[in-house]
């Protein structure tokens, strides 16, 4: 495996040339959304300039080209996560829609009723919590959850009690968007199998950063989104085992998802078309395909190793600053490139504002994971998140910025 040539990678990202408030841009918000390489932007422009037409319904040349490119993107995404077939990839708007697709259809598909249980964790992004709360409200099923240990890992001590014969589905975050924790889900998956429950993984923060094999994960469904993995906004995916997707009822109704329609009745297309009503985000899917090509050419193992190095450096650098407290695992092992922290006596909003003045872009707030903030007794956190283009110099700029924050509020 070759190592990552970060200088060469950075040259592919036009936005990294920008200055912010007179300083070179230091983009440390990739867990929020990643930047886009020229290759992705070019693929989308080329689609619009040369091949634009609607998919799956045109006999003309442009329509055929657009359909080939759109379905080609599906095949690339399928290969990227080791899916058995492109038909196991349902394109959605984002991870939230992918999770909602499963949550909405599973009332019927899993015949949920009072007494049934759905299990999530305290570590979820709101997008893998709220849809299940709503599902439980609709069906009378009970929502239960794993807690978080003090060092920011899933508390599996009650695994056998939490996942039991009443459990119909377990939906867990694979990599925490706020603590950076990479959850080893093997024991939970094995327990779910034992009791006959399905497993969904929210892979929004893992597919962009780790080599992913759905077979290796052992899950039944995963959700992820394009814009966090160098692709455009507006495109995400639900992967599901073919035999499960086959049994699921439609989610949204409309064009493209049908087999035959009469005024009285409609029969539905097989997956994935069954779940893709209406004109899909065509150029966005093609952009995601280009992003997958870009990441594959670099080798995801090299991407992950680079992020491990940056994360180790960041954890060490932040630990050396007095008054800084890092949340989540203290070492890079079992941890992704997302580091949330507190600066003693300074609200994260103020930390983020002063860092922005120095060109350092971080996210502040509850990161759509309020229960995690509550678990660690804070209303908000400051989060720096890394990707394949992040350098140690950028971590140094973050550290200088945090020192400046402490001086302003000293």
């Amino acid at each position, binding site marked *: 495996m070759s190592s990552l040539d970060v200088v060469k990678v950075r040259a592919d990202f036009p936005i990294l040339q920008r200055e912010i408030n007179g300083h070179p841009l230091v983009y440390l918000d990739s867990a929020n959304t990643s930047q886009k390489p020229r290759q992705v932007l070019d693929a989308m422009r080329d689609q619009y300039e040369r091949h634009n037409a609607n998919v799956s319904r045109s006999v003309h040349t442009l329509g055929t080209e657009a359909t080939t490119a759109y379905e080609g993107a599906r095949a690339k995404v399928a290969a990227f996560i080791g899916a058995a077939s492109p038909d196991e990839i349902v394109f959605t708007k984002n991870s939230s829609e992918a999770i909602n697709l499963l949550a909405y259809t599973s009332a019927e598909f899993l015949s949920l009723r009072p007494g049934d249980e759905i299990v999530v964790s305290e570590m979820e992004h709101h997008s893998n919590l709220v849809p299940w709360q709503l599902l439980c409200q609709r069906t009378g099923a009970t929502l239960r959850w794993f807690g978080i240990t003090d060092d920011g890992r899933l508390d599996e001590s009650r695994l056998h009690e939490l996942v039991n014969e009443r459990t119909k589905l377990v939906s867990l975050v694979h990599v925490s968007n706020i603590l950076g924790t990479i959850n080893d889900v093997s024991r939970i998956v094995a327990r779910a199998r034992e009791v006959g429950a399905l497993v969904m993984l929210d892979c929004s923060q893992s597919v962009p950063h780790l080599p992913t094999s759905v077979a290796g994960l052992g899950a039944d469904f995963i959700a992820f989104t394009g814009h966090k993995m160098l692709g455009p906004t507006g495109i995400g995916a639900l992967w599901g085992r073919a035999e499960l997707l086959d049994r699921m009822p439609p989610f949204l109704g409309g064009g493209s998802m049908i087999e035959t329609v009469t005024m009285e009745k409609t029969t539905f297309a097989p997956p994935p078309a069954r779940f893709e009503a209406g004109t899909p985000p065509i150029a966005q899917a093609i952009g995601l395909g280009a992003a997958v090509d870009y990441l594959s050419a670099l080798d995801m193992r090299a991407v992950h190793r680079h992020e491990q190095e940056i994360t180790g450096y960041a954890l060490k650098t932040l630990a050396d600053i007095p008054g800084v407290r890092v949340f989540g695992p203290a070492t890079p092992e079992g941890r992704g490139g997302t580091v949330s922290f507190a600066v003693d006596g300074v609200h994260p909003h*103020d930390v983020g*504002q*002063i860092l922005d*003045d120095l060109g350092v872009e971080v996210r502040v707030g509850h990161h759509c994971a*309020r229960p995690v903030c509550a678990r660690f007794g804070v*209303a908000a956190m400051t989060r720096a998140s890394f990707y394949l283009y992040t350098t140690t110099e950028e971590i140094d700029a973050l550290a200088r910025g945090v020192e400046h924050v402490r001086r302003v509020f000293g």
Partner: protein
Amino acid sequence: MIEQLYQEIILDHYKHPRGRGLREPYAGEAHHVNPTCGDEVTIRVTADLSDISYDGLGCSISQASASVLHELLTGVPPGEAARIHAAFVELMQGRGQIEPDEELLGDAVAFAGVAKYPARVKCALLPWMAFKDAAARAGVGATEVTA
């Protein structure tokens, strides 16, 4: 640029808030939350505005703003409080183009720089919007302000 936002007066109110803490008696109370950042503030007022008490959790801008509000509006006749309130809201929504009236706004003129940071205007306004609701609930007749 950043110094315009973090004026000494603002940092001083943040570190040494005036009149902080919820008190009895009161005639109206309101709790406002900024859902995007989780900042919150609770304001209590008496019907004659002889006391305005508050508590909150959040960034320097929202919390200093509550402290300044307490200092500016406590004990002020309701009609006058409404004028100050309107002037502050106007200043915050002026995108940095409004010259603040120092005589009317006192320490609140320090927030003029906040108006240039659209993402932070809601921080500064949070306690003032809570005050408006609390005053309405307390029947503070003259505090008819629009935001």
